[in-house]
């Protein structure tokens, strides 16, 4: 039998890496499709903002001509990129929640005892979460189109790479946070301390020059918020343009969050090693 063991090939081929990635994306997609409520709430959340909040605020907030817009735009049009980013923010945090759930339920172990390198498993998981967020964003854009949010047709294509990047960034952030969450119940604090501040202290709902008029201090907070740059990257890309500063910030943050998450899930130095077996000792 030892010869049987010795006869096995050492290492993994590129095809095996691809099979693994495909398997993880496929499972994430299946789970998403099975949880219909999750899809509906992912869609309803931004639509509530679009249909109700934006309609109410239309008269209160005038938006002047700022790039990438070359004309006055309706408030609904202005907040659409912000809502797209919001979908990804929630998706990133919810998939981090599902990682905590998986960890409590043990599914996470199935993933982590795979013989492929752990960084690759986490990266695949991240890509899978991003793919799911893309489905949600395009479903939202479709509904928004009937609400007269009509970016240029080419915009639907040019926004795709931006959405991939922002999806990865927000997913990696969620993964990093998930490594620090001990229990499912702590998700309420993630809402309070991560999602709401990130969303409101950004250019999602109001242009930053407006914020500056109100509070210069808050303006700097917003300008430093990675979420602002996610929103701006999407906003420009939706009109076929590139916001280079935002692109750089989003790329930098994606890399930083990813490295952080991989280190956090590293068996020898990460949080899980220090935390101990918890309930399963």
């Amino acid at each position, binding site marked *: *039998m*030892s010869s*049987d*063991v010795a006869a*096995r090939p*050492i*290492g*993994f*081929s590129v*095809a*095996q*890496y691809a*099979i*693994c990635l*495909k*398997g*993880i994306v*496929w*499972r994430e997609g*299946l*789970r998403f499709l*099975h*949880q219909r409520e999750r899809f509906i709430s992912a869609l309803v959340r931004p639509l509530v903002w679009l249909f109700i909040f934006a309609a109410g605020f239309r008269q209160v907030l005038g938006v002047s001509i700022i790039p990438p817009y070359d004309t006055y735009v309706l408030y609904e049009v202005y907040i659409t990129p912000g809502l797209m980013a919001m979908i990804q923010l929630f998706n990133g945090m919810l998939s981090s929640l599902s990682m905590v759930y998986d960890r409590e*339920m*043990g*599914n996470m*172990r*199935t*993933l*982590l*005892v*795979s*013989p*492929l*390198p752990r960084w690759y*498993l986490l990266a695949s998981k991240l890509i899978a979460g991003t793919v799911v967020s893309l489905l949600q964003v395009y479903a939202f854009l479709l509904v928004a189109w009937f609400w007269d949010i009509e970016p240029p047709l080419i915009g639907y294509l040019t926004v795709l790479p931006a959405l991939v990047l922002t999806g990865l960034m927000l997913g990696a952030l969620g993964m990093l946070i998930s490594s620090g969450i001990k229990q499912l119940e702590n998700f309420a604090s993630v809402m309070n301390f991560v999602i709401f501040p990130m969303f409101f202290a950004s250019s999602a709902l109001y242009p930053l020059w407006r914020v500056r008029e109100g509070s210069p201090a808050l303006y700097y907070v917003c300008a430093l918020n990675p979420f602002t740059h996610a929103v701006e990257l999407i906003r420009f890309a939706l009109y076929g343009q590139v916001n280079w500063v935002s692109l750089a910030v989003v790329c930098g943050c994606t890399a930083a969050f990813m490295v952080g998450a991989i280190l956090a899930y*590293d*068996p*020898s*130095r990460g949080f*899980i*090693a*220090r*935390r*101990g*077996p918890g309930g*399963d*000792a």
Partner: protein
Amino acid sequence: MKNVEPAALSVEGLSHAYGARQALKDVTFSIQPASFTVLLGLNGAGKSTLFSLVTRLYGTQRGAIRIFGHDVSRSSGEALRLIGIVFQPRTLDLDLSVEQNLTYHAALHGIGTRTARRRANEVLARIGLSDRRRDKVRDLSGGQMRRIEIARALLHEPRLLLLDEPTVGLDIASRADMLDHVRALVAEQRVCVLWATHLIDEVSESDDVIVLHQGRVLAHGAVARVIADAKAADIRAAFTALTRSAAGEESSEAA
């Protein structure tokens, strides 16, 4: 201990602490290929910690673990692909079908869909659940889920199967059923099994046993020899005698 062929699992001087609490203390043992070894210990003895270290969920702090000669820390990929594991908590996706769960697991091992389907059919046929292939896992009974988990752990054809308290929550008939099934695997497919349990009646005369108590190995070897060394009548008496004398040593150390 040092045979020509490497031990299926060899653990040397393994210690692990969670902060101040020492979960494993200088654990050393090895198990041979195609053997059935029971890891016997009460709750909190360190069984789950040991499994987490062997499967590299946690990094080793002190000591070494080798799977068929592959060091878990240094060549974890090679070590992990030789292991199949059934964890104590259920780790199946309840909303996915049996087959989807199995192909997902295969993908994590780099096994393509076609091969995965073929092997899934084989393992399902062996456990008599072929007709439940397309059913959601949620609709299966506890015993059936456990059998699926074992089938899943065998999908990538591991040489070492680790089971962490696999009979917890099962009725007596399913328990006996599962033990028979896993023992048959050892006999027919020469899979090496490490079976962790706190239930002494799961130990049979022909097994090897490792008695783990408060993070320490108190005895290790063939059941008959462990009983003889402890000068006991059966394994239950031997276990009681071993843990009692360990408790005595502990209190004299403290004094």
